[in-house]
């Protein structure tokens, strides 16, 4: 498997805080990578660096074989990267469908002239956008599609999380970065989410990196798990390997507890 996303020695410092320190990371085509770590470990910062919201102080980043250092978020979306946000951030005053239509932005070209004349090209494009957006909504069965004309803010919490994923799917990305997609979901919804993340890879061909605190979710979906603590990568491997890693247990439970558990 070739690496779709690759980071080497990436660091980011905020004032005196070393948020991310010399992290090597990669995600391959067809792979689901789980990123875990205690609060403040630098997981979301890593996401923000990868998706262009932050510029790393050091390190090399490539996506699809291309050097992406200094790329803006919208350029990365065009290359094929899309993300969701830890705190759900939808375009609340736009309809569910429109949220996904915005996701199609980089795959379309209509400009001012097209908007004014509504020529054949623009009409065809609008139809394609609508169809693809509906296709993304349909991925979640009858949760989103029947509500396509509702405002995003009117959706129930779990549906808003789903819409974030649908919006990211609409960008026709190769890699999805999901920031705590299971946060706030009940056990039944989490079960559904686990199946959906699997289907995202198997049916839609997305590579996926997800940050998650919910260990059962990580355990069920991840092909590989990366653990961060204090901005550093402390472990990498299958879920079983990482979960039994001494440093990881220390990070979560403290040194004493880790010794008590006998390593």
């Amino acid at each position, binding site marked *: 498997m070739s690496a779709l996303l690759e980071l080497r020695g990436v660091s980011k410092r905020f004032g005196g805080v070393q948020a991310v320190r010399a992290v090597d990371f990669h995600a391959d085509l067809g792979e689901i990578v789980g990123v875990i770590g205690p609060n403040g470990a630098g997981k979301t910062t890593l996401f923000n660096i990868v*998706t262009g*919201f932050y510029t790393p102080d050091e390190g090399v980043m490539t996506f699809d074989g291309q050097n992406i250092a200094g790329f*803006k*978020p*919208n350029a990365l*979306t*065009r290359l094929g990267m*899309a*993300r969701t*946000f830890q705190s759900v*951030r*939808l*375009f*609340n*005053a*736009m309809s569910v469908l*429109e949220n996904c*239509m*915005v*996701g199609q*932005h*980089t795959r*379309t070209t*209509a*400009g*001012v002239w*097209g*908007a*004014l004349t*509504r020529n054949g090209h*623009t009409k065809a*494009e*609008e139809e394609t*956008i609508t169809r693809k957006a509906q296709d993304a909504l349909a991925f979640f069965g009858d949760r989103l599609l029947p509500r396509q004309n509702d*405002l995003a*803010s009117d959706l129930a919490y779990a549906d808003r999380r789903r819409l974030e994923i649908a*919006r990211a799917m609409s*960008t026709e990305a190769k890699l999805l970065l999901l920031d705590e997609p299971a946060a706030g979901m009940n056990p039944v919804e989490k079960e559904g989410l686990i199946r959906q993340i699997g289907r995202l890879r198997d049916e839609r061909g997305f590579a996926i990196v997800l940050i998650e605190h919910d260990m059962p979710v990580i355990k069920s979906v991840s092909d590989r798990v990366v653990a961060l603590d204090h901005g550093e990568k402390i472990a990498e491997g299958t879920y079983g390997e990482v979960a039994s890693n001494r440093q990881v247990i220390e990070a979560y439970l403290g040194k004493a507890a880790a010794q008590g558990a006998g390593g």
Partner: protein
Amino acid sequence: MIERFNDRNVVTGIIQLGLILLIITIGGFAYRASGRPKDGTAPPEPVMAGAVAGAASGAMVALFVIVVTLLAEAGYVARDMFESVTPALLDILTFQQNPWVGSAIMIVMAAGVGGLAGYAHRLPAEGRKLTFLGLGTLLIVGLAAPIVDVMVKGLGLPSGWLFRREGLTVAGALLVLVVTVALRWYLDRQGGFRRAAAKLPGITDSNIKKVGLTAAAVVVLALPWLVNSFISEVLGTVGLYILLGLGLNIVVGYAGLLDLGYVAFYAVGAYVTAVTTSLVGYLVTDDPLRPAQNGWTSFWLALPITVVIAFLIGVLIGAPVLRLRGDYLAIVTLGFGEIIRTLVLSDWLKPYFGGPQGVTDVPAPPPASFEFRQPQRLYYLILAFALLALFVSSRLKDSRIGRAWAAMREDEDIAEGMGVSVIKYKTLAFAIGAAVGCLGGAFFAAKLSVANPGSFTLLVSINVLAVVVLGGMGSIPGVVVGSLVLVGLPELLREFGEYRLHIYGAILVLIMLYRPAGLIPDKRRARELAEAKELKETSGVAAS
């Protein structure tokens, strides 16, 4: 102030504006005082409570009159310090009686008004609504009497029995009251205007929109012939502000960029048109002392040139400035507005822009034989371009670009994360807004035959922004209604001299209090506000 307002009849010979303001104030206090208390204690007996509150308010006025009178007897003239306290004012407040009798009348009248206001609580909700609606309409029609009078005459109907000396006659007042109340009552029974209209012969659910639009078009087209040229002139000014408002609406309403220097593009429009067409011949001769007697080009060619230049300047100013956000952006645009004004005012550019005197001798749009400068004809010209701007705005709104703007306005970071190039779309909004707004400037120069720096002050930026915000951000009909209310109304209030800005201010405050999302809110925008409110109410729960 009351004195000035009392020169204005509402119902001629019966009641004047000054007295009405007094009654509204007293009645308003009494109505609030006699309502159900918020703390859940037992409601007062409304008529009594209203009468007491009214009498108390009246007593305050009476006390004022008596204090002033006693001071005057003791040799202190209140007017030395408070120059509005004129004998005429005292005459009004005492109903032309001596102070003591007048004060008694005032208290009794105030108690009566208060009692009536209190009685309003006793009315069923529908009756109360109809009463307030009827009286409110009566006040508005009474105030607008001179205009309505002209329009009725314009239709060729006799108006003498309705209006007399800038006010309604008693018959006219009764007619307005009865018609308003009866119409509203009928419409409520029918379940709203739309339902009632659908019952008319020849109107079906499917064509009701078309019929409405046609009716509106007829009214808009016929308007200049129904009113005099002063009002046509006002309508032309309203049209200019619609153009400016639609332009700024793209920047502020669609893209969410607070631009406090929008006047810059108004000035660019006016100056480019003026310089290219002025008969002084700025671009034809090198020596401004010897005018060329002909312009470089005609208005019609100047118009597209103006639009292109405004667009380019929009890009030029926008590209660096739009990296800023929110408040910072607002301050910098404020600066750019002033820079443009200072530039055209400067000695440095005086050979091109005429310094403080401005560019003069701007001809009317050709052909000269058509006399475009007549207010009625200019009205149609501005109307045509306002419709064009309307079309452009609405098409852009429902497009890929409009969606990108909306997304950007809601959450700039996420929009960028979803692939919208924020800088590009901000600049585009800025430039298109400039191109639309410059049309207003072009017509302004052609209308007044001059472009001078005094016309492009910060106040214009603020007025246009007020039109957009009060109309309803992002809402196209909102801009139209906002212009009518904020630009048309102050012109019509000119007879009140320096007090018209008081009324204007009061209207601004009232609109923002009762319609915070604007007069005709955009659906999206209204939702955003409602959401912010919900967030506040569930404080913290939704935010976490």
